[in-house]
């Protein structure tokens, strides 16, 4: 079912790209109008980023701007209830939708010198223009994904749960191809 390829690092030292299914995190979709941004930012402990693709971080909490009124929140699972409560607290002052999606999506980490190359088998974006630290909503093959670039050679892909086996199988196929070196 789920593609989970976690490798012993020493044995895999020569590999040019690694694919890992990641442990669950707390995920929320936040929708709020311009007037409510500041209040939600205060509630979440960071300033909501203003431009699509920008990520704001506070501790292990990351908030990605996906649209003019849309943010995606990732946080450690232990913070789930606190985030929901923080939103509820400012609801009257700043009406918004804060919907938990921790189970809607799963994430893969794609790392290594050939990480961008592997993603290019299914992602039509120019990954060279996605700066480390940023993230975008895009597609991988026929699945909608959120693609985070954590570093020059480190990406994460969030994908809806039922699309994950397909995305995982394609990443596996691409990895075999890259390993073959042709």
């Amino acid at each position, binding site marked *: *079912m789920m593609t989970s390829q976690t490798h012993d690092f020493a044995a895999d030292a020569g590999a040019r790209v690694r694919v890992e299914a990641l442990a*669950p995190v707390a995920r929320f*979709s936040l*929708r709020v*109008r311009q007037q409510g941004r500041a209040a939600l930012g205060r509630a979440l402990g960071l300033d909501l980023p203003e431009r699509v693709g920008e990520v704001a971080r506070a501790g292990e909490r990351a908030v990605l701007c996906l649209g003019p*009124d849309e943010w995606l929140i990732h946080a450690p699972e232990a913070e789930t209830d606190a985030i929901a409560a923080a939103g509820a607290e400012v609801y009257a002052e700043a*009406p*918004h*939708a804060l*919907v*938990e*999606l*921790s*189970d*809607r*999506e799963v994430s893969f980490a794609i790392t290594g010198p050939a990480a961008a*190359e592997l993603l*290019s*088998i*299914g*992602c*039509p*974006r*120019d990954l*060279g*223009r996605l700066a480390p630290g940023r993230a975008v909503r895009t597609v991988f*093959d*026929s*699945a909608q994904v959120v693609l985070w670039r954590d570093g020059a050679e480190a990406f994460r892909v969030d994908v*809806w*749960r*039922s*699309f994950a*086996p*397909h995305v995982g*199988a*394609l990443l596996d*196929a*691409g990895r*075999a*191809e890259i*390993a*073959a*070196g*042709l």
Partner: protein
Amino acid sequence: MSRFRLPGKGRVNHAETVRFSFDGKAYEGLRGDTVASALLAHGIHLMGRSFKYHRPRGPVTADSAEPNALIGTSRGPGRFEPNTRATVQELRQGLECESQNRLGSLAFDLGAVNDALHPLFPAGFYYKTFMWPRSFWDRLYEPIIRRAAGLGRAPSEVDPDIYASRYLHTDLLVVGAGPSGLMAALVAARAGARVTLVDENPEMGGAILSDPGVGIDGQPAWDWLAQTLEELASLGVRLMTRTTAIGYYHQNMIGLCEKITDHLDTIPDGAPRERMWRVRATRVVLAQGALEKPLVFHGNDRPGVMLAGAAQSYLHRWGVRVGDRAVIVTSHDSAYFTAFDLAEAGTKVVAIIDTREAPPEALRAEARARGIELLAGHTVTGTKGRLRVASVTVNPVEAGRIGDPRMLHCDCLLMSGGWTPSLHLFSHTKASLAWDEQSRTFLPGRMTEECHIAGAGRGLWGYLDALSDGAEAGAAAARALGQEAEAPTPAVAHDRAGTGESHKELPTDRTSSRVRAFIDFQNDVTAKDIRLAVREGMRSIEHVKRYTTNGMATDQGKMSSINGLMIAADAVGKAPPEVGLTTFRPPYTPTTFGAFAGYHKGATFEVTRATPIDGWAEENGAVYEPVSLWRRAWYFPQGGEDMDRAVARECRATREGVGIFDASTLGKIEVAGPDAVEFMNRMYTNPWTKLAPGRCRYGVLLGEDGYIRDDGVIGRLGPDLFHVTTTTGGAARVLNMMEDYLQTEWPDLDVWLTSTTEQWATVALNGPKARKVLEGLVEGADMSAEAMPHMSVAECRVAGFKARLFRLSFTGELGFEINVPARHGRALWEALMQAGQPHGICAYGTETMHVLRAEKGFIIIGQDTDGTVAPEDAGLGWAIGKKKPDFVGKRSLARPDLVAEGRKQLVGLLTEDGHVKLEEGAQIVFDPDQPKPMKMVGHVTSSYHSATLGRSIAMALIEGGRDRMGETVHVPMPDGVVRAKVTSTAFYDPDGDRLKL
């Protein structure tokens, strides 16, 4: 050493022998050979047979435009490929190839009887021949034509190869790595652009590979090439060989097909055979060069007759002389250099036949100096030789009169009709072509994309012009990218510039009916066929093409289009651009299906969505059915049950005890915000204002046209929060429709929509014992009938998991739907199965769900509705909030045709014989004795055998159906007319007593 191979010459590796076989016979070639060059090195020209007349044929080109030398190649089971061009396929150890399109052997082809009968097969012969009698078509003509049609042998096994694909972004894509393309890439890369350079050949260089005698920037051309490639690599240019730009699409999207393993002796594990690149380039330089035109004369298709440029390539790239005695026939200067180079390599050049009266003096002098006879102002009127050209007949032409013939013995005849700029990719962009009267060819006209076209591709000739133009294009592209760039002027020594003339058929003294001058070699189209097509009324080149099949061969007209046009224009009596040029369409060269399919085969053919509970279903023997992209458990057969028995058992178990069903695929949308209730009032037909938190309601969604689009149960979790469910297939569509209204019509509403379909796993529990199974697992909610009546919802914990618990029923039994975070779906399911064991819990699939809901008359969107069913038609008038000022579709419900009498209405049908099950989709008539064609008054939408009722039941849309209760209608079926009674759709427990638990 093969007799025609020149020791040490060419770019092949003379130290490495490669063994291969052709038609079962073993041969040796060299590393770097193509099948064609290796066979030519052995003196073999005969490589194939033509399609229609089965005429013997040899390679006419040395490249991807080859129409004749098509072979089948194989490297084991599933890896057979027909119609491979021998001029493109590189040798690999053990390569097995076979000739094709022959009956018997290549040398003695029984199919050649067609050639003797050629007067019977003029252009369009099958339009004329196979028309009458009409009845012969299906039984005789079509089977025969189908057997005769098609090139090569279709592979019969599954292709085991891997095909890959990638996306690529680049500042500048240069197509073609000849002199222009190399210079363009070099200049742009030096200026700092991200450059990708592609070429379909195994190595870069283009014409330079066939012209080592030219000097560039003070170096021999090949040294300059090596140094340039090195510099390109060091500048970070992505260099892609064996990569064909197959199509040029909108906004500089170019498709590239890269051949990866076909040339390798062994395929590394996991290596793809081909890779499709989807390239988005900011700028494009097209440097595809030009295609040499054959000359059109009687017998121009014999093995040994080939393009002069091809002979020159075989000589310089592969060190192969294509014959011992060559005759050159040309209308262009370029073929002189072939003659000179061949003479130098030891081939006797018998004569150069120039169709022009006055070839340039420099070339005449050079021919004289080499002792080559030059026959200017001559034509070729025929060739002889059975499987290889043995002689050519030439005649002087003076003032249009053909002089006396002279026969020249030769073993190869090298022709050049001049060069056509390769504008294929340029044409894919729908850019316009401009006819150039002086050069009598099409040149690039108005551009539609951010592209440049350079070198021979826009009609320039000679290395200095090609290199300079490439440099200019590279500089222009770089400047367009915001870089500073200047085009250097290269220095060229021993340039091979030149000009030529363009012809229709060469003049001849033969009776026109006896001339067989080929234009499309593969499809056996002759000049005569084109003229016949025009005589028979074809005026546009598109019609001429379809009537004669000219240009429809696998080379897609690369050899034939322009010659066909010249002759058609002459026959019509108009200028060529007025007759038109056939449209070039992708792909540029034949491309495998595998390359297009990429990863989309086998397990990754298409996304298959599975629920969190899917694993349990699989382990418990579920039979699946696809529902949109999902695979859903259809039924769970036990002990060899067939579907009917399994479904009957599942239905009974649910009605009598308790059934469990995976409803996770239901679409779910969280509607949240202060204006949530207002939004719901505007979207759905139902009123929502008075729905209290903790209660739910069946909602109906219409389109603007008033027809039913979707439905589902919607729970109100708080004043500002609704949990909306949609149909499985409608999830994405409904969310998009809602977003559309919200963003474009009601941006003022403070409400937001979020898809939670996959956040929740949903398990439905139905049956009189459902509460007994569930209540022990529920914390934080009172499960009693009083506290949790039908159509209510609670947030609580079930089996320890955070849950949204609905009490609702799609079966007519006491029912619950439990939503838990998706990762816990299977654990919840298993907990319920365990708790249900003492009560005989039974897992059921979608078929049982369908039967149970049909027994209650509940509709399925898309099955009982088809986009033309309004709420009243479906008996859902009660779901319309009559007092609401508006909702989507409200206005349309008052349309005259929606309030008219006699609309089709959803009713129940009971067949007179309860054993007979109607067919879904079957048409219905009121009077089976009326004359044909009968008036159809509706159709069966749902039909099942109901184990509960012990008979069949059906639902149908019938004109004025609700006014016909108790009447008999007739359903004509192949084995007789079935009588059925119109009834209510509530077949089971019409008063809903079973919900009152």
